[in-house]
């Protein structure tokens, strides 16, 4: 049987707060987040940042796992094209991102929930704008509310009207 750990959702009665999982590369975007912190910049606290060595390390499985376990959005941050510490990693990330975004559409996951940004170590301001913008867009979309997080209830199904 599958065991699912899910990101705890907000207690009932409170307003929806998007939960965004962010994968930032060690050399650029993570340093931008660091700079934003040391510069005392304020941005939406809805992102959970995971530092990876390179955006090319983002396995599509990480993105799907984040969504499957309760993320409302996933943000990938890497170095600008041409600036990758490992030469090609961000191009690989871009190619995977483009196919994954189209595939997520087939799963009914909107484009605004999955984003790739090039943010250099100096661009703390760009990071703030990207995060704030994404949080607002995901807030407007509402919770992802995947079907897999619900159980199959035969009793309720039996009575469920089929609306066609």
């Amino acid at each position, binding site marked *: *049987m*599958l065991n699912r750990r899910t990101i705890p959702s907000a207690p009932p009665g409170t307003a929806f707060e998007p939960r965004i999982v962010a994968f930032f590369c060690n050399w650029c975007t993570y340093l931008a987040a660091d700079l934003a912190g040391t510069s005392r910049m304020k941005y939406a606290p809805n992102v959970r940042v995971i530092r990876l060595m390179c955006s*090319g390390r983002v*396995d*599509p*499985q990480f*993105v*799907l*796992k984040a*969504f*499957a376990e309760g993320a409302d959005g996933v943000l990938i941050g890497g170095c600008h*094209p041409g600036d990758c510490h490992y030469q090609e990693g961000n*191009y*690989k990330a*871009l*190619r*995977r991102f*483009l*196919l*994954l975004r*189209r*595939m997520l*559409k*087939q*799963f*009914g*996951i*909107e484009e605004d929930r999955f984003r790739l940004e090039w943010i250099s170590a100096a661009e703390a301001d760009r990071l703030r704008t990207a995060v704030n913008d994404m949080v607002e867009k995901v807030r407007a979309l509402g919770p*992802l*509310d*995947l*079907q*897999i997080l619900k159980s*199959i209830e*035969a009793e309720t*199904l*039996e009575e469920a009207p*089929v*609306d*066609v």
Partner: protein
Amino acid sequence: MSDKPKIAFYWCASCGGCDEAIVDLDEALLDVAGATEIVFWPVALDFKRKDVEALPDGSVYAAFINGAVRNSEQEEMAHLLRRKAKVVVAFGSCAQLGGIPGLANLFSRADILSAAYLEPATMDNPDRVLPAVHSRANGQELELPVFQDRVRALDQVVDVDYYIPGCPPMPKIIGAAVAALLGSELPPKGSVLAPNKALCDECPRKDTKPEKLSFTEFKRPHQVLADEKICLLAQGLVCMGPATRAGCEAVCIQGNMPCTGCGGPTSRVRDQGAKMLSALASLVDAKEPEEIERTLATIPDPVGTLYRYSLPASLLQAARPEQTCAA
């Protein structure tokens, strides 16, 4: 009653190909039948559900269940066989991963019923009648199983001890698996009873796979006459070999058709489609988004291509039903 180990076969949401694969064991089937007592096999033998219910719990040695689980009858049978059997084996891609029927998870229950009973040009259904769990006809009360809201792999319904992959499993794999189960030392619980390496490793065209693949266009089998000697990926065909478990001896490739992934992932991969997506996309020979998109557009149906047999067992399992499914 003999003291040979009792075994049972059952089919859930499946095409019958898995049962056919058992029959395809030919003479080896006689060895299996000789070494065991088959107590249930709807496709071949006349035992009923009540015969299974009458058996003491745990008295069946192994239940081989093929097919995915889509309705309440299949779910009940899976639970019944789980109670009766010491060992439950998910037999074939559908039981292991959800299989081809699992692609229905891209559509809502309402869409499926409509596509089957309302929309077809050949359907004459003016009263828009849909299958209902309870109905009356000629004064009789009729009951149908509940058509559930998504397809599940067997281990999403009951505890599964072993998996036999393939669509359908190859006779050699079945033979080895049965021998392992009847042997003195059982494999560790949860094992997939097939080699744990990628199909490319046993592919006869392995040596023609270039050191570095790159793609400017993905081709589909009907669009090209593939060279019979050269790696299909090197010819631009989407061959699932790198993300698929070996054991079939690359029969499809030997027939000059690319692997479609029925063997499922190896133990090191959680999500077969995501892993293949990663491999294919990263090898696109372009750096500009528009150019990359042009190449990727030659995979018109990513889910159907990359998760052909494994959607219900994937990380996302199903599409959000209220959303559209257009790629």
